[in-house]
């Protein structure tokens, strides 16, 4: 799946997690802009993993701070 298609699917997955309806672009940060707590992060990561049938290990998660970085990582992880 190319980056654009991946981004479109991530946008669908993130929708129910974005409870405050914050406008998300590539530079939006999960901790700073979305203010997610660790539980929300865990549930969201699990939802992304299930959607794409991939593993995003804690080590990889540590490198993902922004929405754009997530799209890049998921695009790469699908191989």
């Amino acid at each position, binding site marked *: 799946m190319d980056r654009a298609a991946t981004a479109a699917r991530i946008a669908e997955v993130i929708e129910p997690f974005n409870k405050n309806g914050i406008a998300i672009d590539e530079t939006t940060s999960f901790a700073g802009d979305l203010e997610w707590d660790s539980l929300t992060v865990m549930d969201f990561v699990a939802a992304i*993993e299930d959607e794409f049938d991939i593993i995003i290990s804690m080590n990889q998660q540590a490198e993902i701070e922004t929405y754009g970085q997530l799209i890049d990582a998921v695009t790469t992880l699908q191989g």
Partner: protein
Amino acid sequence: MNDMTPPEAATKAPETDLFSKFDALIETRRSLLATGVTDPFSLVMEKVLSPTTAICNGRETILLGTYNYMGMTFDPDVITAGKQALDDFGAGTTGSRVLNGTYAGHRAVEEALKEFYAMDHAMVFSTGYQANLGIISTIAGKGDYIVLDIDSHASIWDGCKMGDAEVVPFKHNDIEAMEKRLRRIPEGAGKLVVLEGVYSMLGDIAPLKEMIRIAKSYGAMVLVDEAHSMGFIGPNGRGVAEDQGVLEDVDFVIGTFSKSVGTVGGFCVSNHPKFEIMRLVCRPYVFTASLPPSVVATAATSIRKLMHAGNKRAHLWENSRTLHGALTQLGFKLGTAEPQSAIIAVIMPDLERGAMMWEALLREGLYVNLARPPATPAGMTLLRCSLCAEHTAEQVSVIAGMFERAGKAVGII
């Protein structure tokens, strides 16, 4: 205040430095204590009278938060063994297990563990924390995958981080979530599944039978932390894996001397034929001093007594069921619907009322653990009660009364 209180603002901290990251926690703590509540994290036991009673703040207090499940801390045989070892071998070993720190007593306690678990190898660490830290970080390294429950103990997480493996958590006790993650691990990568028999925050047990079956079907090695089950869960007190009939499929059991055994120390038992190499490659085993001779002597004596403690075990379970029933009836919200272990977690509405309830219980003469994030799952504040085989039926009834009065005073029930 006590003598340890530093003089007021002797030195002013700079606006920002390495301590700035703790500012939020410092503020939470300050505002909690500003309400006038006693600091739940600086209680001093002035005198310990028995496994179930101590003097705290000058008054006799029932202990219901010590993990001293089998009440071995004052067992006469255990005390005698410790005193004898102190006389015969001195106060400490001043050395690593692999240099001058292995005495006859260290070998003897490892023999006792091998017999207790009916396993081929036993390795004793200076604490349970170090046992998890050491074994996990040593066997799962760069490129390997660790699949673990999200509610795992801090020592497990720290072991994962230290070993540099890929760390893949799954939702607490969720068999399907665990399997999905195992299925997605790349072909050929080393896999370790880390589980606990009893999860100490809510006192719930894991569905080890199914989880271990699945882990094995994906070719993973399995490590189970049985810290909170030793001595009273399973036909021989070997823990939840034994109770569910899957102990022989567990590659590594991690345990501690600081709960049922009644002293301090940690261990790993295993049937792996190459296990002994761990003694040379496991840094938290090598680069620290071994346990004092008196400690290993008390541990060995206690472990051997735990092999024949059927009556105490039965009484511990009776205590757990009685208190769980009483607290449920009083209207408290508990961590499990039925008693699954010797831990009963009472769920508090928030930290402030949790601290108030904790203090009200202490005034009644009862000590429980106040547990709060990040130790607790889902941001919960808990009053964690751990029962002891030495609590009498009368004490358990007194405890229920204390909970009733304190709960009403604080407005929780």
